[in-house]
Every structure is written in structure tokens, then in C-alpha cells.
């Protein structure tokens, strides 16, 4: 009951955020985005033709009225048809969302898990050679541009210059083995790029926790290393860890998949969004922006509830 009340309050509190984000984005796409009118018309259109296309696209209505329509679309979760293909936005999203999630999830989870494990090992052997080696590799990983990583991995794993084990582009998935074939290289690239940042961040958090009094107490009572790291250190540093993971979710879903999908030619949400931006396909952009804002508010809510779950001192207020 307490959690339900809390959730309701948080969601209501998130409404201004959603309004702000959608208003600014909509303002930008209406006044600074590409105009689709002439792209849809043939050569030498008449004034009436222009007029009718503009009416069809909704360009002729006043801004505020169009914004209100947008809000109604968010509430009803119905974003109309794409300007470019005429396909319903909802069915485009329904088709591409699962692909994006399938591409991004393994790399996201493994990147964070590996980062945590490496950070724990490094922090436990603090300032020893293991720590120095791990931190050295992290800095190297952070310093290499994502583009170079993608190209290098494609050369090594996907071309006849290298091992040629995996396809370099596309998404032709009908079975688990197909999935593994297409997802492996993008996943490795995501992990490689995220790992350095994750490890460094988690190590800093864990090192701080290891200096705490209760960790010393645990040592003084003979706690073995694995248990010390799990019960005393990890369990107590979950709040910053959860914060980082949760807050990177909206970013990873949109921007992470944008880069990965473009470079690996995967038809996911990122690719669709990228195309919609360059072509001024407003219904798709409106849907993506609106849903991201909603996702963010939900993420905030879930993050707060998770805090309560991992730390008994936190109360939901």
C-alpha cells in the first residue's frame, strides 16, 4: 500500500518533466526540423496541392493546438501514421522495439556485470599489480573511440581479413543460433566500450565502502574475502550502483542502439529514429521522444523503490 501511494505520487510528480521534455522537443522539430511537404509532392505542384498536403501533415494548424494533439497521442498511446512510409507508428515500434532490446540487452548486462566483478577484484587488491593492470586496461578501453572499436571488431571478426566468423551487418534472426550469430559482435563492441567506464566507476564506489568501519568489523570477526566483498561491500554500495545502472537505461535504449544499429545495419528503434530525424518524420519522433520521457519517469520511480529494497534505512516518502 505504501509502495502504491508512493508510486502514484512519483508519477504525478513526473508529469511536469514529461510536459517540459515534449514541449521543447516538439518546438524544435516543428520550427527547426525538415519540412516534408515538397518531398511528398511531385514537380511543379499547384497551390491547392501544397495546401492539401500541408493540411494532411497538420502543418496548417497553430502550434499550441498541434502540441495538445501530441499530448493526447501520448495519453492514448496512438501516434498516427509515419509521414514517410504511411505505416502506423505503433506497428513500426512494435516491430523494431524487440530487435533493439535483443541487440542491446546482453551487452548492457554483461558490461555492467563484468565491470562490477573487475571493480571488486581491483578494489580488493587495491594498489597491487592486479589493481594496476585492471585500471590500466580500463583507461585504454575508455580512450579508444567507439567508431574505431566497431570498425576494428568488424575487421577482426566479420571480414576475410580476420577470422570471418560473423556477419558484419544485418539482422536475419529466426532461431537462437541466428541470434547469437548477429548479436555477438555488437555485444562485444558495447562491452568493450562500456567496460572501462563501468569498472572505474564501480571501483571508486567499492574502494570507498571498503574503508568503512563495518568492513573492518567484519574482518575482525574473520569474514572470508568472498563473503566480505558480497555482504559487507557490495550490499552496501548498491545505491550508487543501482543509480548508475538505472539512469543509463533510457540513454542506452535510445542513443546506444542508435550508434550500434547504424553501424551494424540492424533495423531497430535506433535506426528508425535516426531515419526519422533526417527525414523529418514527425509522428515517429513524437512517439520516440514521448515514450523516452515516460520511460525516464518510470525509471526514476523504480530506482527509488529499489533503494528501499536494498537499504532498510531508506523510507519511501
Amino acid at each position: 500500500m505504501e509502495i502504491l501511494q508512493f508510486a502514484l505520487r512519483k508519477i504525478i510528480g513526473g508529469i511536469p518533466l514529461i510536459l517540459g521534455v515534449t514541449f521543447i522537443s516538439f518546438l524544435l522539430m516543428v520550427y527547426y526540423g525538415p519540412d516534408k511537404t515538397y518531398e511528398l509532392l511531385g514537380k511543379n505542384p499547384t497551390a491547392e496541392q501544397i495546401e492539401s498536403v500541408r493540411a494532411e501533415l497538420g502543418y496548417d494548424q497553430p502550434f499550441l493546438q498541434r502540441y495538445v494533439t501530441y499530448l493526447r497521442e501520448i495519453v492514448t498511446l496512438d501516434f498516427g501514421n509515419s509521414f514517410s512510409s504511411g505505416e502506423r507508428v505503433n506497428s513500426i515500434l512494435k516491430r523494431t522495439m524487440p530487435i533493439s532490446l535483443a541487440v542491446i540487452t546482453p551487452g548492457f548486462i554483461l558490461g555492467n556485470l563484468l565491470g562490477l566483478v573487475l571493480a571488486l577484484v581491483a578494489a580488493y587488491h587495491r594498489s597491487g599489480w592486479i589493481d594496476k593492470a585492471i585500471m590500466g586496461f580500463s583507461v585504454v578501453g575508455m580512450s579508444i573511440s567507439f567508431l574505431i572499436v566497431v570498425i576494428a571488431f568488424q575487421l577482426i571478426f566479420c571480414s576475410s581479413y580476420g577470422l570471418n566468423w560473423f556477419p558484419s551487418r544485418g539482422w536475419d534472426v529466426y532461431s537462437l543460433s541466428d541470434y547469437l550469430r548477429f548479436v555477438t559482435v555488437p555485444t562485444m563492441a558495447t562491452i568493450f566500450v562500456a567496460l572501462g567506464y563501468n569498472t572505474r566507476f564501480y571501483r571508486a564506489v567499492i574502494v570507498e565502502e571498503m574503508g568503512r568501519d563495518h568492513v573492518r568489523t567484519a574482518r575482525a570477526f574473520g569474514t572470508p574475502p568472498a563473503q566480505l566483498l558480497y555482504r559487507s561491500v557490495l550490499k552496501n554500495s548498491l545505491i550508487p550502483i543501482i543509480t548508475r545502472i538505472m539512469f543509463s537505461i533510457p540513454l542506452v535504449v535510445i542513443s546506444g542502439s542508435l550508434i550500434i544499429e547504424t553501424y551494424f545495419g540492424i533495423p531497430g528503434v535506433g535506426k528508425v529514429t535516426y531515419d526519422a530525424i533526417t527525414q523529418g518524420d514527425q509522428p515517429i519522433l513524437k512517439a520516440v521522444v514521448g515514450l523516452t520521457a515516460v520511460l525516464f519517469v518510470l525509471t526514476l520511480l523504480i530506482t527509488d523503490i529499489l533503494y528501499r529494497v536494498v537499504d532498510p534505512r531508506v523510507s519511501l516518502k
Partner: protein
Amino acid sequence: MTAPVGKKPVLTVKELVIEFQTERGVVRAVDGVSFELYAGQTLGIVGESGCGKTVTCLALLGLVPTPPGRIVSGSIELNGRNIVGLGDREMRNIRGRDISMIFQEPMTALNPVFTVGNQLCEVIRRHTDATRRQAHAQAVEMLAVVGIPAPAKRMGDYPHQLSGGMRQRVMIAMALSCNPSVLVADEPTTALDVTTQAQVIEQMVLLQEQFDMAVILITHDLGVVAETCEDVMVMYCGQVIEQAPASGLFTRPSHPYTAGLLASIPRIRRERLQELPVIRGMVPDLLSLPMGCRFSTRCEYADQRCQAQIPSLRTATGTDAAVACFKPLGEA
């Protein structure tokens, strides 16, 4: 020290030397400390911050952070076995079972995300073959022993739900749960309010008799030492400068530093309010210690010999005290 006839010491520390590697050089935090401790006895270690008392005690549990710290020489015999240089695994078996430590800050010394019951059972099950249920029963019993009301109910509480005094009692329960032969208490009451302090100290004295433990009490509070300890060891800059039965030390201190410490305790029942005597000067930097006696720079009796040679511990004439001073107070 007052050695009971025919008994073997549970803890013997001999010529312990501990050094720390710092950015500015090697610091000798503990320099040739020796003492013996018998079951049922309480030894107080007194001294200013940074005098090496906490490091000495951490060494007893093998908890000196290495690096930067290092036990250079000396031995620590616990129940007849030298524990200096023991492996990690063997040391872990000793900690909490043969020797326990309770810490200064009860507010932060317990793991905040587990219930006190969970933490107690954890320690019990690590060091004994108790089943989950037996451990639970024993934990409840321990909480009762340390004077926590409604112990079964308290088992499910998190540390933040308890008061400071309660938390320190939980720490003591944890420390005693495996019936250790030595209990090290590092300023166990400093963070508590005065009435709670008295209760916790009283409880510790009771439990010591009940469990027949040897206790090392590190404290700034000379009042607590007078009430609880048989013997007192005064440390200064990593060295023991006076070691004496508590009764004698308080009435007739031998070392000028001990005398200074005792004089600087405020006494409320004085007729006229006077300025509190202080030991003049500052504790010297451990990296640039004086040539001779380490207290010589602050000592009003110091002469040339004090500044040139380091005095070693010897029995002061006419007392039970061992003192490291060329001109102890009683002898002049």
C-alpha cells in the same frame, strides 16, 4: 606485571615493532612493545592519539593494513602459539573465535543492511558447527547476556533502529559469542553518553568474570581505567613508557608524562577554579623523533642524558611499576 602464580599467560607480546611506509618515509608506529596478559585480567592501554595503542591491538588480530604497514619483528603468542606471520586463512579462524575486538564507533561498526540477528548468527556459524537454529538460539541468549531487553524481538532489528548503547551491546554480544580468550576493546565507550558509558563498562566487567576472559582496554578515559583495570600500560610515540598496577599508577605515577596525564584530568570538587594543568608542547612527529627519550622535548626534568639516550623499561625503586625514564618521579 602482577603475574598470578602457576598460571600461563593467554597472550604474550614480545618486542613488537610495526612500521608504516608513508610518502615522507618509514614511520615506526610501534617500537618494542612487550606485555603479558592472563585470563581474567584487564590491561588498560593509555596514551594520546597516534601513540600506537590502536595499531598494537590491530596487530593482535592480524589486522594491520599491509601495505603500508608491516610487522618488522617481535612475536605475539596467543594461547601459546605465535600468530605473527600466520596465513590469511589461519588468521581468519582465530579472529572472532580466540580473540575478538570491539570498536569505538557503534554507530558505524555494524553492517547497516543486515539485521543484528543475522550478523550475530553469521559469526557464530562461522566459528562453530552450530546449525541455523542453534546459532539463532545462541544469538538470542548472547543478546540477553549483554543486557538487551526482549532479545528475541531485537534479533530482527537493523542497527539503525537501535540506540548507541544498544548497538555497543550488540557488538559486545558478537565479540563474546564464540567465547574468546582475549577481548580487545578500542575505546568502547567514547562515543556513548555518560550514563550509557557507565552501564556498558559495568556490563563488560561482569561479563569478563563470567567468561574468564583477558581484556585489553584502550581508552583516553583514565577514570574508566581506574575502575576496571588491574594493570595499566602508558604509551608515548610507539613506546611503552610506564607499566604498572592501576592502584599504584594513579596514586604514585613514576614517569613525568604519566604524572602530566593525571594532572590534566579536570577535578570538579576543587574549592577554587584553577587553570587546568597541561603538558606543554606537542607530541613529536613520528618521522623526526628526538634523539634520546621521546618525551625529553616536553619534560620539565629532562637533562642532557635524556636528550642523548633512550631510557629502557626498568623497575622503579620502591614500586611495582616498570618505567622508561632516567629520572622517575619517586626516585629523585
